[in-house]
């Protein structure tokens, strides 16, 4: 049954599904990174998500902590560019939910916006640089747009925006990260981190709509 809001326990359940989906997607994510980077993105994300599951198994005090613990677990287990980037995303995004005891479409928008801002401040990449930001930024715009809709509808729209963003990253030229010197040869492949973002928001939407 589609959920209009999520409790802390449900957020934890949702994050567990996100983790499982990323772990499942490891080969695809690694392959994406192999085309442009060093081929380990899926392995890093998998390592991070295994740490997330372990961390969340102990529960979390509130919604903020569920997200920020996710970020901490990724940051300290993964390393690499995406450990810092995805860790920052969940930590900073989670902080915007301080004091909240329900997660709704507005919370989704503030999670993504807060996470995106911090990721950009941390890593210096902008939309168009062919990073995970190219899935995260359109997802953030869409989330703001649909913040007054129902959580299932909002989550689905956000997931679609992330998927579209991922696909749009194919046409971009990589300038950041390990891929930074591929230049024009990076055209035609999606960014690995953007693929992860799409998997994450698709999993969230699936959990919320199920």
């Amino acid at each position, binding site marked *: 049954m589609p959920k209009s809001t999520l409790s802390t326990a449900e957020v934890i359940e949702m994050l567990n599904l996100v983790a499982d989906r990323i772990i499942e997607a490891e*080969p695809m994510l*690694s392959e994406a990174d*192999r085309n442009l*980077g*060093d*081929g*380990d993105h899926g*392995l*890093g994300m998998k*390592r991070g998500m295994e740490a997330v599951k372990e961390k969340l198994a102990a529960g979390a005090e509130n919604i903020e902590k569920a997200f920020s613990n996710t970020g901490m677990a990724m*940051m*300290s*287990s*993964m*390393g*690499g*560019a*995406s*450990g*810092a*980037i995805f860790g920052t995303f969940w930590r900073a995004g989670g902080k915007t939910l301080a004091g909240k005891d329900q997660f709704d479409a507005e919370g989704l928008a503030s999670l993504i916006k807060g996470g995106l801002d911090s990721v950009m401040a*941390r*890593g210096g990449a902008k939309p168009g640089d062919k990073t995970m930001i190219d899935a995260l930024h359109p997802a953030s715009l869409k989330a703001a747009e649909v913040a007054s809709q129902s959580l299932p509808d909002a989550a689905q729209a956000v997931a679609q925006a992330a998927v579209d963003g991922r696909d749009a990253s194919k046409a971009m030229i990589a*300038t*950041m*990260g*390990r*891929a*930074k*010197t*591929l*230049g024009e*040869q990076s055209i035609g492949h999606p960014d690995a981190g953007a693929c992860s973002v799409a998997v994450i928001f698709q999993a969230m939407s699936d959990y919320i709509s199920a």
Partner: protein
Amino acid sequence: MNSAKKIINNPNACADELLEGLVLAYDGKARKVGKRSIVMNDLRPDAPALLVGGGAGHEPIYHGLVGKNMADGAACGDIFAAPPPDIVLEATQAVNRGKGVLYLYGNYAGDVLNFDIGAELAADEGIEVRTVLIHDDVASAPAAEKHKRRGVAGLVPITKLAGAAAASVDSLDELERITRKAVANTRSVGVSTKPGSIPATGAPTFELADDVIGLGMGIHGEKGVGLIPMCTADELAPKMLDLLFGDDLELNAGDEIVFFVNSLGSTHMMELLILLRSARPILEKRGLKIHHTMVGDIVTCQEMAGVSFSITKLDDELKRLWDMPCSSVGYTKL
């Protein structure tokens, strides 16, 4: 096409296990700290510290450059992944002797992100941290955009010089100044002939046709300046040296240099020596004085094949530091 046939245990525990082995290789001169750092015992008191680090899988760098008159410690990431901030922090705390810590590492997005967060955490603990990025790879961006350049094999002579400085000077300022000079004076260029593999999956790190050489390629298979047909050592050496000479490091007749011929893994020392034979006359013809020649596989990527040339220009100060003996698993000099 999978070239990996690895003698390992758990493919996901390679970084942890190799670090344990590395500590053993130091025969009590270094110890493991925290989750995944290695730090020398018996550090000189009241001295600024030199911390290196980066992803695993490139052994003996980065953590194998910890040693006497080399780095004081290293923060070790997972395979091909920068060390997370908490590992950077634990290493920082362990090497700090009240005079601050210099981070010296290769310019990769993941390393910059994680070391920067680590530095913020260290600042919270009251530890002064400075950062010097290694960006010696001339094929990875134009000279005007050094901040985009990767760090490759030049990190070995740079760490050797910085390590000698760390053993000699009394302030973080001095250590930073000398290390920046070593970086400013070092250029590298690499070529690749075959990929390494990712230990966790056995998948090759990139693809490359049998009849081409990747000129300027990075150690993870990052593209360089282009593919050239497979060629001889005598043909390749000038192509590589041209890229070094065409860069913005002034190299004039009479200048003294360290010349480093490095294998990326499975390229054999026979080939390194033949390439050295091809390269040296070209260096000498330019009037460069080779103060010291290094040959070996120190900056690697698993069983990747390929080589790199690095040049470090020495002034009197750097030469004095170069001539200090040093000892580490990765590089030892009498």
